[in-house]
């Protein structure tokens, strides 16, 4: 064996090759099993576990008397856990089976299933399944792997459309919001978030933290066992200052009014607490909770989302006569006893301004002029006061300034006067002053501004910020936020002027333009208004405050009826209904009890 030396060396080479190769594999094992252990263990856990989220109940919303305005109910959702391997032929069978029960086409369901398969994440096939369908589906659950029924909390609004503009509604998460809310706990792409009103404003408070069921699944998507149940944390409850009865009365009255469209704001003048904030037409926020397929296409732009009470701007009309009178007498430009002759029109140069009553009011002093809302009296007195002073007073009373009511999109309206016109064309002329003195021209106000204004008259000079949140509390009842009254501004007018204004407004309701709003047993003071509308029927205004005799006023109220014509005729009865609801068997307030 001549070659017996060389081959033995080659054997060593072979051995070294095998040894080195195994060393490389061992190094790779070291890399995988020790260095990359954490990451790969996580991957293995992701493989074997599936988390089905259980939607936590949103915080409830109550009215001031504890009536539930927005709550939650348990519903069943059908959740599909996709298998980790590709098996599409079974999906088609599944889609056909589900189609009849869920009332969707097989293609739609197939699309959802395939997306779930691609993402490898559980998907909700249906939410809010009715009971009958639930029983059919629970049979399916045993037949089809990966199908599960979970109980979830779903938003429900027991009063339906009541306070819809204030409460808002829920909608699906949008990508832009997910980016904003990513840091917050408990948000996912399929979370429902508030899209309007309180639901949107207090989204972070109302949204609880979702719980979940952690499942162990195998490669085929079979459920092996439940690993963990993570309890959800409900959202915080919000108690409103709203009174559901008043709100209901306001909405009903608005619906029954001439046009059926309009706004009502009722608030406690001494605290700014809103008792009712209605805007018609409204909507039922329950519509948004249900799956869109179930009630046909009800897209968002079909919903009357516009909140007239804070977003609608109108000329104040005769309501502004309160401001004109305050400016006139506080500045001492006239005495209340001064008389003005009203022939039914007023000539200024070559222009003629009409009184609303063609035949005129004759000789009128202030109280009569206010009671009958005589325009000519205020034209002349407005000229005496001067445009700049009128504008200053109207700003003082909050015209053109936001009330800072905590609702998104509040309009500020438009203050009108020589200062606002400064540097613009056409220049301010006396005719503009005439218009401004009865609240016409370029002046625009929102209903809630007018509520604050009449509230200021009721409190004799203190304007409170309108608020509707009373308190926010944790689910266990601990209050984490309590609203305090905030003074928005102080209108410093001599007390005798307030007396005069209040007396004149009381007479408006007693036997003037606002007598349709007279409520027996109450002292009601108010002012009607007609906002001229060049594009149709005028808008009807009515502002009022009311209290029991001998007590301070309890409510300040504004009613706006779109295209309602004369304020006293259409808005007055609405205001009356609301006042009756406010004072109907309500328990005496704390201070009243204290006085007894």
């Amino acid at each position, binding site marked *: 064996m001549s070659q017996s030396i060389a*081959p033995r060396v*080659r054997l060593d080479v072979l051995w070294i090759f095998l040894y080195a190769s*195994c060393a*490389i*594999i061992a190094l790779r094992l070291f890399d995988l*099993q020790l260095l990359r252990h954490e990451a790969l263990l996580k991957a293995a856990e992701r*493989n074997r576990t599936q988390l089905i989220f259980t939607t936590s109940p949103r915080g409830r919303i109550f009215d001031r008397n504890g009536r539930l305005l927005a709550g939650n109910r348990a519903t069943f959702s059908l959740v599909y856990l996709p298998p980790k391997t590709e098996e599409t032929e079974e999906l088609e069978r599944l889609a056909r089976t589900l189609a009849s029960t869920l009332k969707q086409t097989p293609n739609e369901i197939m699309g959802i299933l395939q997306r779930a398969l691609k993402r490898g994440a559980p998907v909700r096939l249906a939410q809010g399944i009715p009971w009958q369908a639930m029983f059919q589906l629970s049979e399916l659950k045993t037949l089809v792997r990966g199908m599960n029924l979970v109980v979830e909390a779903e938003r429900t609004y027991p009063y339906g459309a009541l306070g819809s503009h204030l409460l808002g509604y829920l909608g699906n998460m949008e990508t832009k919001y997910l980016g904003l809310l990513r840091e917050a706990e408990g948000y996912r792409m399929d979370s429902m978030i508030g899209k309007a009103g309180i639901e949107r404003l207090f989204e972070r408070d109302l949204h609880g933290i979702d719980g979940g069921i952690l499942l162990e699944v195998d490669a085929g998507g079979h459920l092996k066992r439940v690993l963990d149940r993570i309890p959800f944390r409900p959202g915080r409850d919000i108690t409103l200052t709203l009174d559901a009865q008043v709100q209901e009365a306001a909405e009903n009255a608005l619906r029954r009014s001439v046009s059926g469209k309009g706004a009502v704001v009722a608030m406690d003048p001494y605290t700014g607490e809103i008792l009712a904030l209605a805007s018609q037409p409204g909507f039922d926020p329950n519509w948004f909770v249900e799956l869109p397929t179930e009630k046909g296409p009800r897209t968002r732009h079909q919903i009357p989302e516009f909140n007239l009470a804070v977003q609608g701007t109108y000329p104040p009309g005769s309501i502004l006569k309160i401001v004109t009178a305050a400016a006139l007498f506080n500045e001492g430009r006239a005495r209340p006893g001064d008389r003005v002759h009203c022939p039914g029109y007023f000539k200024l140069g070559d222009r003629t301004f009409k009184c609303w009553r063609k035949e005129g009011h004759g000789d009128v002093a202030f109280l009569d002029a206010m009671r009958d809302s005589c325009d000519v009296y205020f034209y002349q007195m407005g000229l005496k006061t001067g445009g700049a002073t009128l504008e200053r007073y109207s700003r003082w009373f909050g015209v053109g300034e936001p009330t800072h009511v905590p609702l998104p999109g509040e309009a500020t309206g438009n203050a009108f006067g020589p200062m606002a016109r400064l540097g613009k064309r056409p220049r301010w002329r006396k005719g503009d002053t005439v218009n401004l003195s009865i609240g016409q021209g370029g002046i625009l106000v929102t209903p809630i501004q007018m509520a604050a204004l009449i509230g200021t008259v009721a409190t004799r000079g203190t304007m409170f910020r309108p608020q509707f949140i009373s308190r926010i509390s944790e689910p266990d009842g601990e209050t984490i936020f309590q609203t305090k009254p905030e003074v928005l501004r102080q209108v410093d007018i001599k007390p005798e002027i307030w007396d005069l204004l209040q007396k004149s407004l009381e007479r408006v309701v007693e036997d003037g333009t606002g007598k349709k709003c007279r409520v027996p047993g109450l002292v009601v003071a108010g002012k009607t208004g007609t906002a001229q509308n060049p594009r149709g029927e005028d808008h009807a205004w009515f502002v009022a405050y009311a209290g029991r005799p001998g007590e301070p006023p309890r409510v300040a109220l504004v009613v706006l009826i779109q295209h309602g014509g004369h304020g006293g005729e259409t808005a007055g009865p609405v205001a009356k209904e609301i006042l009756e609801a406010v004072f109907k068997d309500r328990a005496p307030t704390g201070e009243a009890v204290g006085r007894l």
Partner: protein
Amino acid sequence: MPFVARETIRGRMDWTLVWATVALLFMGTLAVASASWHLPYSNHILQKHFLALGIGAFAFLAGLSLNYQVYQDQSKAAYVVAILLLLAVLIFGQTLRGTRGWFRLPFFSFQPSEVVRILTIFVVANYLVHRGRWVTELPVVIGTFALAAPVLALILAEPDLSSTLVLFPTLLCMLFCAGARPSHLSALAGYGLVSFAMPLVWTYLSLRPERTASGLGGFLGSLSHFSLTFFLALAGFAAVLAFLYWFHAKMRFQLPWYYFAALYLVLAGGLSTGILVNHALKDYQKKRFVSFLSPEADPRGSGYNLRQAQIALGSGGFWGKGMFSGTQSQLGFLPERHTDFVFAVIGEELGFLGALFTLGLYLFVLWRLVMAARVARDEFGYLVACGLTGLFGFHLLINTGMTVGLLPVAGVPLPMVSYGGSSLVVSLWSLGIAQSVYMRRFML
């Protein structure tokens, strides 16, 4: 004197190899039991596994007691049997997973290519023994492959790519140990590499079409058919080599001309074979290439296996998740877990320790095989032991390399650990033969 003979056997046997094998079989049985635990036919698998273990024990004894020189004497018969078995399985065999490679017997299926591999080792060893003096010459090297070519072709025809994949380096290993020139071997290895690398490249290009837009990618892509470009490239390459030869002669280097010719032949031959292999490859085999080249391309498809094996290994960590509690293997995320990916099961459930232990055991068995080759009393025994070392060694490297993600998924089992009756029995038989070589190391 039977008593003395038995004493002799006991005294001369390589007991360390026996114990290492037993330990390896124990690990394998544990892994197979654990991996098949949740399968509906788990009992069936375990029954067959234990049956194969029993038969394997007898096969081991048979291999051990029979003088290995018998195989040298009967190598012609072995060759005929090998060819006949492969032909028979092609005609009468049963198709499992796209491969016509099984005989269905009353109790279990039998895969003749397992036996044929051992028979080929005998035949090649005998050939090399007889031509030992000229092994440094090229004709012997080519002759070796010519001898093995029918077997390789028939196995490829099944088609059983992975068996071929292991047999080719085994033959190279035998030639190397027989003393063939490294230059011849590297030319052969280069040929093999080119013929397997080109399909890989083409698959990669088909995956990333944007690469074919550029110069080199487009050129390589156009070589995947016997097109005009292909022949032009061959001609161009010949011209380049001729120029290089002329140039280096000018520079007064003295390299023989056939170096250049060999380089040309290796490339041209490898390319041509590569085209044939590329056409012969099944879609699923190409997909395995794909998944190796870019596992992200299709994480739910063929890249899935690779990814899941690495997750299984990595999630095992140092100590492992414990026997029967690996989530990857128990819940079915790991595919082929009781066969090709059994190493990942060990890695997941017994951790780095268990995987390293198994690897070490295997390396120990290989060392004992090398030892058997070292002490073999004749050239045939030496070459057979070398062939077996190569066979087991390349099985180990390809299987574990695939499991840890260093090599493409090739469907090569880990002998004695993976589930597979024929493989187990034949492996034990071949270890018995190695024992026979070791035992009869002394000239009697």
